[in-house]
């Protein structure tokens, strides 16, 4: 159990001492262990239900309380999968000759530790710590490479992340002042319906998290950062990092939103999400550079997540559950698909030696495998069956219909069409046969295989959505217990 949180930190410390090549071997070993532990935890929860866990027997607020439920372990597992994929990919993709690459592994592991901390964290401050860890590691990863543009993007990212953290911390402080506890369940237990200070706190925290999640119109930092980073880094950032802040926002909302939130706030967040879907997709469609397309696509896909707020506020319990399931699937499938897409895009860029979309002509018969991975991931983003993206869209559609909020239907459907527009733009460019260029580089097989595996996972998610969702929805074995179970 502790391994999940602290072993990544240990790996980080160890790899700090090594150069890139040796760090790579160490990290690959670490990843294997992480994956195995995550899997066993997942099966433990799937079999026995979730639980609370107080680290080393210390309970919150002094110690670190972990909340190990189906959702959390699933995200842990997702992180393990995506991060491993990116890590393996990065190990081959990054050029070991550059001296700064040795910092990749420590940052990578810090990021992982932060993510696990967020998924499992049960109190607001721990969540904050995890979030900060993630942000700093992520900024470092973006900056890795040292180009001026990368540094600029990283600084911008850092600024946004800090601003977001500040707002979040302010909210946490307000809540702590009011209720004297940082435990989310603790606060949820005592909070009343009309507490303006608490409502303000929630608003602040949500705003901060929205900035970190790159919700429209606060998304300005994301495309440059995700676009300029190395492909495996972009994959990590788009696939996992933005989800962490959203995860916290969602937890806050689901615990406190029914009392502290308002219809206006819920609809407003939903509207911003909708705007993100439309604007992000449109921008993605217009980008001349391949990775920018993918980055803007993230802005759009993140927009869907914010439909959670209106679809769970003041609606019947089954509808809310539908929406939560839909959003969860969207998080998972987007993580897998977007990681696949960034990695595949990296391969394509390597192959044609240009970042431009219109340089892709002819790549379809030179690098069909990577293009196919890219395409499969795109299918999931479009929300076409049988992918996880479709399953998510279907559930959200059902939730919108059942809650009578039909306007989100338009967003969901239109978003799919726009996604198709920017994905097919890439296909179109790559199918063009009249390009004269015959000068392609063939990336190693590993690089080609990884995005395919991720894309297939995203695809398969739709087919096994029901069993996955049933694990996600597993209740806690002991309602608010403090049983310490050492795995």
């Amino acid at each position, binding site marked *: 159990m502790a391994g999940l949180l602290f072993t990544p930190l240990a790996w980080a410390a160890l790899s700090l001492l090594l150069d890139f090549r040796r760090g790579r071997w160490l990290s690959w070993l670490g990843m294997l262990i992480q994956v195995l532990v995550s899997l066993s935890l997942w099966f433990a929860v799937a079999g026995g239900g979730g639980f609370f866990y107080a680290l080393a027997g210390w309970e919150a607020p002094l110690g670190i309380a972990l909340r190990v439920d189906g959702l959390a372990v699933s995200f842990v597992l997702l992180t393990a999968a995506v991060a491993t994929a990116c890590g393996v990919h990065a190990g081959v993709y990054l050029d070991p000759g550059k001296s700064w690459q040795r910092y990749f592994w420590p940052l990578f592991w810090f990021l992982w530790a932060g993510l696990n901390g967020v998924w499992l964290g049960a109190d607001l401050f721990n969540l904050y710590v995890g979030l900060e860890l993630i942000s700093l590691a992520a900024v470092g990863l973006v900056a890795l490479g040292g180009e001026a543009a990368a540094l600029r993007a990283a600084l911008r990212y850092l600024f946004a992340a800090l601003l977001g953290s500040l707002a979040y911390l302010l909210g946490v402080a307000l809540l702590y002042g009011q209720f004297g506890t940082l435990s989310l369940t603790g606060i949820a237990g005592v909070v009343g319906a009309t507490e303006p200070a608490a409502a303000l706190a929630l608003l602040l925290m949500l705003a901060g998290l929205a900035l970190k999640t790159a919700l429209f119109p606060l998304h300005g930092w994301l495309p440059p950062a995700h676009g300029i980073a190395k492909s495996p880094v972009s994959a990590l950032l788009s696939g996992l990092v933005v989800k962490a802040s959203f995860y916290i926002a969602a937890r806050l909302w689901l615990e406190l939103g029914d009392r502290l939130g308002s219809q206006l706030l819920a609809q407003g967040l939903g509207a911003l999400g909708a705007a993100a879907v439309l604007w992000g997709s449109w921008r993605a469609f217009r980008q001349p550079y391949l990775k920018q397309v993918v980055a803007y696509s993230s802005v759009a896909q993140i927009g869907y997540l914010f439909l959670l707020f209106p679809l769970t506020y003041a609606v019947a319990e089954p509808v809310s559950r539908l929406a939560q*399931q839909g959003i969860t699937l969207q998080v998972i499938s987007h993580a897998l698909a977007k990681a696949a897409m960034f990695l595949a895009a990296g391969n394509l860029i390597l192959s044609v030696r240009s970042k431009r979309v219109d340089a892709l002509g002819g790549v379809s018969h030179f690098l*069909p495998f990577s293009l196919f991975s890219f395409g499969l991931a795109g299918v999931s983003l479009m929300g076409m069956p049988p992918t996880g993206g479709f399953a998510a869209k279907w559930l959200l559609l059902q939730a919108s219909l059942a809650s009578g909020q039909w306007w989100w*239907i338009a967003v969901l459907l239109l978003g799919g069409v726009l996604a198709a527009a920017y994905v097919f733009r890439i296909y*179109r460019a790559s199918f063009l046969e009249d390009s004269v260029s015959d000068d392609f580089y063939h990336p190693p097989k590993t690089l080609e295989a990884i995005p395919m595996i991720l894309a297939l996972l995203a695809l398969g998610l739709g087919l096994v959505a029901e069993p996955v969702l049933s694990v996600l929805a597993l209740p806690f074995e002991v309602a608010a217990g403090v049983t310490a179970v050492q795995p």
Partner: protein
Amino acid sequence: MSLTALLPILALLSSLLAAVVIFALPESSHRLRTLVNLLAAVLKLGIVAAMTWGVFRGVDFSVSFSMLPGVSFMLRADALAMLFAGLSAVLWLLTTIYAVGYLEDSPNRSRFFGFFSLCVASTMGIALAGNLFTFFLFYEMLTLSTYPLVVHRGTARALQAGRNYIIYTLGGGVVLLLGIAWLHGLAGDLAFRETGHFQSVDPALHGQLTLVFVLLVAGLGVKAGMFPVHGWLPQAMVAPAPVSALLHAVAVVKAGAFGIVRVVYDIFGIDFAYRQGLLEPLAWLAAFTVLYGSLRALWQLDLKRRLAFSTISQVSYIILGVTLFGPLGTVGGLVHLLHQGIMKITLFFCAGNYAETLGVHRVDELDGAGARMPATSIAFTAAALGMIGVPPLAGFVTKWTLGAGALAAQMEWVVLVLLLSSLLNAAYFLPIVYRLWFLPVAAPWPEERRWGRLETNAWLFWPPLVTMLLLVLVGLLAPTAFSPLSWAQLIAVRMYLP
């Protein structure tokens, strides 16, 4: 897992696995790829034949598992499913053979055949889908897997056509999804049932159900090439001939038409649709499309374009049949699903042969081709006459049944439409036939290579002849058991049971 559950899955997997294997094979291993292709096609034909026999005997082939909360993935082989599955299994084998010959020495064959197999897997899924959700799943998969085939040539024109194809079909898919989701919200997960689900339904829901019906039909109508959402079809003919054959005869337009059949009969029930007055407007639209497609075809000089407009017209026959309330009309629509496929695939095979062997793409370049390529031209002539509705060919059986169905449904004007359309068909097909046989050759044919005793590559030579034989036999022997007509009657009888 029992055999009854295994067979539908195997029918799907046979081409799905073929796709995977083909993608995995290196571009250069042509023989192995061809072998895999043919083996899969023959295997699938065998499975489908076994299932057809089983369905005839009353065996229930079905398999389902829960995919999402409240939604299951369901494969089920009923008589209607076998009608479509049989068509695609038979024609896939022939198209595969044809495609192997057609794409000889062309690049990107691995990609082509991979998506080709995916496309057929989707079609099989559409045929065997047991509920609307599963249907949609494969319906969209079909859209995606045909795109690379449409743009296969990679020319600017092909890409443009692909773009329009994807805009139309994805747009249709969105409308369809909306309809399906809405219906699911109203009535839950609806499995296809021969008499439909809404014989008795709360009148308060009628309004919403009508809207859902319109959405579903509109979404499906895109693929079925109904006016005014037919625009993608004539453009998509830039694709290689086997793809056109697949698009027009087996997969895409058929998927749309088949979907409409499913929606009208197996979801809403023909009784409900009739009582709500949903059939009449659809009939008018279909009739208009029939005439519109034929009229447009008259002016096309490009052979494949003319065939494409003809498809628009012919597929709406199926829809027209669906809208004729009464078993005869239903039989007419259903049987045309097959007959049109057989006839149109023959025509596209022939058009492809002319293009590949003689380099002829335009109607006015076909003068005297009958003497140079008699077998192909005979096949073309037979299919064209069949389209016109000349007995005893396949098209006549359709036209007769549809006409009789229209009269039985007291919709006499439909007969007029059928007759007019026949005349128009004659007006755009007969001049081609005339050119083939009666006009002298304008310029000497290119003699790039010899094919031995045959007039063209053997892989291209036989498929149109086989389909020609089929189109004669299904008409000539229409009343025998297992003919498309008898099978359609079997289905229709079950649909109108009280």
